[in-house]
């Protein structure tokens, strides 16, 4: 296998991640958005596995597995259940305006390319483009978080952003595993926190009994 081929495949995965990030940006329904997240995480898992193979770092397979199991299977499933249970699946997202969001997104990708390719001039070619594309994924995730009002889509934005971070972490040659695993775990922790909150929020705003309780408490204050 030639080195050029290794680079090309790595860049293809990273580029596809950016593409899926754009798909998430214009997706205005929750269920397709969750599908896009699944695809995003799946691509990340492939990308990390490829890096593990190319860099000959078997420990990265663990990270790939975590991405696959938690982010491409368990978490999307949990989200799906949540959306169906809360009866949100017909909900249409109101974003800041898809056209403008997409334009800003393109601008962010151009910015991250220009910035990272310039400052990583000293690093090797594999690292350079991966980090540049990873920054693009991170910024697109951020953009999604700020342009969405719905809590679930904000969390999905956050998770795509974390995918970008892991892409950067695995792209940086030989970065110790400690960080990747902790990132994966942090996503998990974050998810638990979020899960609790989402249910609580729903509970407070929609269940009549609790609402009534709340009103009594407010009145007593």
């Amino acid at each position, binding site marked *: 296998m030639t080195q050029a081929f290794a680079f090309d495949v790595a860049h293809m995965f990273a580029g596809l991640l950016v593409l899926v990030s754009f798909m998430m940006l214009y997706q205005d329904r929750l269920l397709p958005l969750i599908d896009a997240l699944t695809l995003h995480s799946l691509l990340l898992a492939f990308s990390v596995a490829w890096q593990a193979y190319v860099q000959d770092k078997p420990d990265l397979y663990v990270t790939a597995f975590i991405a696959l199991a938690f982010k491409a299977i368990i978490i999307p499933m949990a989200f799906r259940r949540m959306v169906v249970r809360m009866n949100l699946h017909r909900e249409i997202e109101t974003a800041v305006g898809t056209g403008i969001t997409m334009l800003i997104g393109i601008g962010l990708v151009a910015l991250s390319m220009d910035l990272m390719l310039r*400052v*990583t001039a000293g690093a090797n070619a594999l690292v350079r483009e991966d*980090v540049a594309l990873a920054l693009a994924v991170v910024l697109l995730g951020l953009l999604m978080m700020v342009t969405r009002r719905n809590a679930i889509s904000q969390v999905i934005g956050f998770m795509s*952003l974390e995918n970008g971070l892991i892409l950067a972490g695995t792209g940086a040659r030989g970065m110790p595993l400690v*960080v990747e695993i902790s990132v994966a775990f*942090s996503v998990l922790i974050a998810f638990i*926190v979020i899960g609790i*909150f989402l249910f*609580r929020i729903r509970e*407070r705003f929609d269940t009549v009994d609790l609402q009534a309780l709340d009103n009594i408490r407010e009145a007593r204050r």
Partner: protein
Amino acid sequence: MIFSALNPVLALLATSLIGAAVLALIPDYRLSARLNILFSGAVLAFAVTLFYYRPPTNNFLLTDDLNVVFIVLNALVGFTTSIFSASYIGHEIETGRLTPGYLRFYHAIYQLMMFGMDLALTANNIGLMWVAVELATLSTVVMVGIYRTNDALEAAWKYFILGSVGIALALFGTILVYLAAVSALGEGMDSMAWTNLLHRASRLDPSLLNVAFVFLLLGYGTKVGLAPMHAWLPDAHAEGPTPVSAVLSGLLLNVALYALLRFKMIMSANAATIPVGPLMITLGIGSLIFAAFMLYRRRDIKRLFAYSSIEHMGIIVFAFGMGGPLANFAGLLQMTMHSLTKSAIFFSVGHIAQVKGTQRIADIRGLTASHPVLGWTLVAGVVAIAGLPPFGVFMSEFLVLTSAFARAPLLAALVVFGLLVAFGALLWRLGGLAFGEPRGPTTPVTASYLPIFAHLALVFVAGFYMPGPMVAWFQNVAGLLK
């Protein structure tokens, strides 16, 4: 040496972690409140031993003159807050705002949060430090939402979202620092150890470091509460339980600042990087002036003091941005004084809000008449935080200004302007709160005044006397910071 058998840093970290596990298992809230004090006290004891004995540095943990100051301050305020918390939650149980089940959770998370902060302060590994800051942040997120009111959940959500953005930017910055180090230090753990990075700073790639620092400044700066990334801070302070507000203002902001200072040291050690001072000065003065004006329009007493924290973090970041021995010394002192004073104020405010049953400033009047001890400690605290003599904050602000006037009079004038604006707002609000005809319930309050008195006494003494060894220590640290 008796200490050499026992590594105080590991002992300190283990105590909080075991504390979290034990407190998660105990259903009785009275017992767990006492145990919380006990664990926090043990952490303080271990922290103090660090003055006499330093465990050896490895790729994961580090103790030097800089972080011992932060660790001891962290442990001290953690301990006094646990005492305050014990009397505070008794009242919350009575009024039914919290149930014993939630308190079990609350105490466990309290220790977990202390663990996260102590780990962040002792970590020698920039990745580990990031994980620890994130752990501390996530645990405070759940604490902020513990009352389960709409406002509390909204505050926790906002904190979570903005905190995550900060976390992401900081991690990206951390990865870039690693990339900058790989060619000089090789792959693996060595390139993440902070001591190695500092030692070989001149060989790291300067352009990568520059970009990395911008990400780190925005990322950790979000947690320091610098404007314009401060939006989470007032909500989180106002809606969470008051002990959490005290710990957030007194400690968590410092921990994030500490992370920034570590990276600033690497930047300063590499001559080819951009100077980071101007970036920090801009954010610092911006936060100071912005927060000072925002103080005028606050209606909620905890929100008022939350903005005052933004103002003070602005001054501190400004001081460290100026750099040099005197400004760094002033910054360190300001940070210490702010932590002690602000937590004392939150202790008072917590009891005041409980006895009055409200956080609305308009509904609280004449505290010195209705609750003399709470009223006068609040007066003392606000006078101190506004920077009036004879308190320690006056000393540190005076030093910040002296060093600034000597080098950049125009910037110093901006700082003076911000300080005066904030000063006016605080004293104006204080007049209504503390004096005049009492309004609202005047029932006596069961409070533990000890933590408030202890903090105010320390700040008061620091106003005109600082022990020689402490001055020498701070000077040494100021020198380390460059």
